[in-house]
């Protein structure tokens, strides 16, 4: 009998994990416990999508999510789950690491793939060396904790199993108080959901040339993204438009990479693009190894020509 727990402060992520846990539990067989961290409706939704039982951890308004670590680890020490899946949001990664430390348990961080063997042992894959490697790892002990990126699994169909929600109050940690929350101002394009993305790197020699990049993007019906140095060092484009392992992950139909060398950190953010087209003046740039179509050219000359050619083709 296997016991799988799923934990997220985001309802959509909790349901995705619940769906996957249900699939794994049905194969064993086993039970699924969903842990909601923000509101009761998430617990109710999990019960309607495959969870056998739900826990609702209630945090005080001024407490960070991580304040639930001790309570959560005590609940897990009692229940002894075999596999615990956390949605890999930033807060939940911190929470999961603290829970793992309290339990002396293994934690796999930001898994991109999960396989559970017939005996219940889990193996997972994760990105290492800033995107330069994929590591396959296995747990050596019986308590297996894992954080998994949101949207790794599809949203599950309705499947009502249990009805009971257990409410647990998380004691206030008086040492820590949230004094303010500021929503992020959305200034850049929404590149995560775009079907066409044009990415620029340091091969763009001056900021004024961004206008030409923007023009190419609008001719292709796309959004402009960039590499990390363009956003963080040069600050030519908003931070939420940089693509990479620590920035946005994109999966467009078409990714046009302009004047970017293809560092592993950037590649990790654009790997799921369907077609990759690259322009770089250095014929040895690594981006050409990760592109379907490549052209060796300097951007100063290639950009105006590209705008003309796209116009000729009716774009």
């Amino acid at each position, binding site marked *: 009998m296997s016991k799988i727990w799923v934990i997220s402060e985001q309802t959509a992520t909790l349901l995705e994990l619940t769906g996957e846990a249900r699939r794994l539990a049905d194969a064993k067989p086993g039970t699924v416990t969903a842990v909601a961290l923000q509101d009761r409706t998430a617990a109710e939704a999990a019960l309607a999508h495959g969870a056998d039982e739900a826990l609702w951890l209630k945090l005080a308004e001024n407490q960070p999510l991580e304040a639930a670590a001790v309570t959560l680890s005590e609940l897990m020490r009692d229940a002894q789950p075999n596999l615990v899946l956390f949605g890999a949001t*930033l807060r939940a990664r*911190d929470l999961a*690491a603290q829970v793992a*430390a309290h339990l002396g348990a293994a934690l796999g961080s930001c898994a991109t793939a999960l396989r559970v063997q017939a005996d219940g042992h889990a193996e997972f894959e994760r990105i290492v060396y800033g995107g*330069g490697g994929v590591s396959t790892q296995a747990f*050596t002990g019986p308590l297996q904790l894992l954080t998994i990126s949101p949207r790794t699994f599809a949203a599950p169909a309705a499947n009502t199993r249990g009805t009971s929600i257990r409410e647990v109050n998380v004691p206030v940690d008086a040492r820590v108080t949230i004094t303010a929350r500021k929503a992020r101002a959305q200034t850049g394009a929404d590149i995560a959901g775009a079907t066409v993305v044009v990415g620029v790197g340091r091969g763009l020699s001056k900021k004024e040339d961004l206008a030409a990049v923007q023009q190419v993007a609008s001719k292709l019906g796309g959004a402009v993204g960039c590499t990390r140095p363009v956003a963080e060092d040069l600050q030519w484009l908003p931070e939420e438009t940089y693509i990479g392992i620590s920035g946005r992950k994109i999966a467009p139909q078409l990714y046009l990479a302009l004047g970017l060398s293809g560092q592993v950190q950037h590649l990790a953010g654009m790997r799921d693009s369907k077609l990759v087209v690259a322009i770089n003046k250095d014929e040895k740039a690594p981006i050409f*190894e990760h592109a379907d*179509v490549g052209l060796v050219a300097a951007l100063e000359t290639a950009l105006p020509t590209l705008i003309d050619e796209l116009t000729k083709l009716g774009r």
Partner: protein
Amino acid sequence: MPNVIVCYKWVLDEADLRVGPGGALNLDNAGRKISEYDRNALEEAALITEKHGGTITAVSLGGPEIKASAKDALSRGPNSVILAMDPTLQAADAHTTALGLAAAVRTLSAYDLILCGEGSGDQYAQQVGPRMAALLRVPCISYVNKLTLDGDHVICERKLEEGVEVVRAQLPVVVTVLPDLNKPRIPGLKQVMGAAKKPQVVLDAKALGFGTAELTPRLSTLAVKAPLSNRKKLRVQNVAELAQQLVSALS
């Protein structure tokens, strides 16, 4: 005056990665460096003590290879370094690393602030800071890009997916930092020379109180390979051909 501890990892330089036959990663000739975000932690400690006084102790954990890191770390501002160093710690996972760093911290008489990078340049598991905080029973404030000391409290801005969370916490705390917190300065000749004179303390596995339980890895690595790339790698000769490829991809 605050006693600041900075934890850093002596990582393999991912720029030296080579892909061998069958996509296996070859790191045999890779150099080592202080993990990027840990340099931001070291810089922040230097900024804090320049403003408030106090001391900085750097702490690292690993195999004999970390001996070479001490001078680099000490040239960035710390007064001394503790090396939790033992051949058995060479490939320590996050569980063992956090236990070892926490044990090293406990050898100090007092501390106010422990700074770590939010993740390491090699594994980027983002676990060691929060794990240490849990083991030491102090709060962890993670993903911080602004930090202000206010008496016996710290005020931190955490950069999260949906925005900024401002947290006020009572010292001692663990803070994990983001790269946009500061710009680490590059040590000059004077700092490098001065580093050679600063004290280094070595704690082996026995001195850390480690037995089999602490040293048993909780995770085992089965394989590390280069990510698969199945791109067509077609070269075109001019912009016109490229434009045609772009347009046909959209039709």
